[in-house]
């Protein structure tokens, strides 16, 4: 890399010959055009475009000249469907964050106890991650089917009054989706946690054994604090996945019963492409972006701000 990294100093020396600088390293610049296009036009350009149009009265078509200020946002936050979506996302988000971390770490810790058949268990825990949310949603829709699924099986065992029908009960439908979401994604968190556990020095274990600290206590007091960066990575990955929840809901419940399992991502798509209310879609998607930034900015600050200080 020395060849290219000296470019900075070199270009100072050859500063008077300006035209040369643009053409220097030309192939690399041409090769990077798709990346530059994606970064500037798609990621920045399209995001700014959407944010701008969220302040307009766009209906069937974008209307950049009909500026209405915060009207779309006021409407959005007084729409029941959006409020239900946000509530669902909050419940789903908090539960899946906690459950994914707990299940992922527990499974990884169990697999790390030098057990037999580790590879088999790991393969079993991770395979759902290869499947799409559509497949996940449809198969859990079938398992939770009240006529033939879990409810029926338990009733057949003799517990006649047993009811477990989350997909048709507006109060608990989001937990039905949660079961499927955890099934699909927790294996991935387990893999990350397992890699983190394998990165811990064997000597730490020896030292705690010498001190006579019980295994469970070692995990809580020593290992988990040591794995802080792994937990942060897992947290960011889970959080960025939660906001995207869309296909799972579409497949499993289509947002039903009624609007009980709506989520923000689905609200946006439907406003944009079905009810021809672009302005609402733009405002709702901007709110999604804001919620991502709320998670991302503190993380980026800790992660990169911290590195600079070192």
């Amino acid at each position, binding site marked *: 890399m020395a060849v*290219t990294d000296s470019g900075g100093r070199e270009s100072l020396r050859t500063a008077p010959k300006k035209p040369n600088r643009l053409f220097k390293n030309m192939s690399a610049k041409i*090769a990077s055009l798709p990346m530059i296009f994606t970064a500037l036009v798609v990621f920045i350009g399209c995001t700014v475009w959407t944010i701008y149009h969220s302040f307009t009265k766009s209906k069937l078509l974008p209307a950049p000249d009909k500026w209405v200020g915060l009207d779309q946002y006021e409407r959005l936050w007084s729409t029941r469907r959006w409020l239900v979506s946000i509530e669902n996302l909050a419940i789903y988000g908090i539960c899946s964050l906690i459950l994914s971390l707990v299940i992922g770490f527990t499974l990884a810790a169990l697999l790390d106890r030098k057990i037999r058949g580790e590879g088999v268990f790991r393969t079993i825990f991770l395979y759902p991650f290869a*499947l799409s949310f559509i497949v996940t949603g449809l198969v859990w829709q079938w398992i939770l089917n009240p006529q033939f699924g879990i409810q029926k099986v338990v009733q057949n065992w003799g517990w006649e009054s047993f009811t477990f029908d989350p997909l048709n009960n507006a109060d608990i439908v989001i937990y039905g989706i949660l079961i499927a979401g955890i099934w699909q994604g927790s294996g991935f968190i387990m893999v990350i946690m397992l890699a983190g556990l394998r990165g811990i020095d064997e000597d730490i274990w020896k030292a705690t054994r010498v001190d006579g600290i019980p295994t469970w206590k070692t995990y809580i007091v020593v290992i988990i604090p040591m794995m802080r960066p792994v937990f942060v990575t897992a947290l960011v990955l889970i959080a960025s996945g939660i906001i995207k929840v869309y*296909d799972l809901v579409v497949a499993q419940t289509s947002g039903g019963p009624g609007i009980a399992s709506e989520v923000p991502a689905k609200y946006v798509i439907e406003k944009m492409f079905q009810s021809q209310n672009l302005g609402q879609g733009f405002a709702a998607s901007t709110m999604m972006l804001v919620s991502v930034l709320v998670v991302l900015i503190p993380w*980026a600050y800790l992660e*990169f701000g911290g590195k600079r200080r070192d």
Partner: protein
Amino acid sequence: MTDLSAHSLSGPRGPKPRRRLSPANIMLYSTLFIAAVYYLLPLYVMIVTSLKGMPEIRLGNVFAPPVDITFEPWVKAWSEACTGINCDGLSRGFWNSVQIMVPSVIISIAIASVNGYALANWKFKGSEVFFTILIFGAFIPYQVMIYPIVILLRETGDVIAAATGTNFRLMGSLSGLVIVHSIFGMPILTLLFRNYFTSVPEELFKAARVDGAGFWRIYFQVMLPMSLPIFVVAIILQVTGIWNDFLFGVIYTKPEIYPMTVQLNNIVNSVQGVKEYNVNMAATLLTGLVPLGIYFVSGKLFVRGIAAGAVKG
């Protein structure tokens, strides 16, 4: 950050465990066993349901093993199931998905590998800035960018059509979806290739430079031949990712060219007609077969691919 390479997952270290049936061990294995049942249950249910006839399903429950094994639901799901007015089964969606996947995988990996190579070995002013934007862009919800991209595709398609005098279209076509997949695959793939090419010994690159090789020659003759493993990882990542995509497929294509996931959802969640649960599960399993096959065959490389996504930052 953490070392998430395949090597670190290669197995437990230390001496072999002593064979002992202590209470702690019984707890450990029974917990793992219960967890394994939870994870395997849906796969089991999919398989047994798809092998039963409808009368048997109506009489029993989802967990009962099939008495009369029949493959008819599979045949029906593949070649007869209806979406709207089309009744040619999931096979149409399968071939659509293949047609979407193959060019998307090739183009996205070609672009990202060259990008990663430029970022690792041919840094130019601003290259790191663009890369940072690219990585942070991966966190922007797709919903924010989806509509402007519709406009971009439509307008670009119109310009190309006018220039060539054809009725070429990007919006609602396979080529449009390929572009979208290439764009949204770029952050993770570029990161993957950049990290890989950065780890290649610098002397190799320098030696090639001294010999007078330029950007493309070093890429094709030095870098490409020695980076086969990372290409395999990228292919696994992209094939499963694109195969499992639903959102882009439903937005940027039209019913005749819907990918398999979209068609599957339309078949199973259609409100018309009697629900044929066995056909539905056969269709679901068929859609999951490609990524499952890749997962079980590739094993550790799959883990390496998804772990690469975890080392962001």
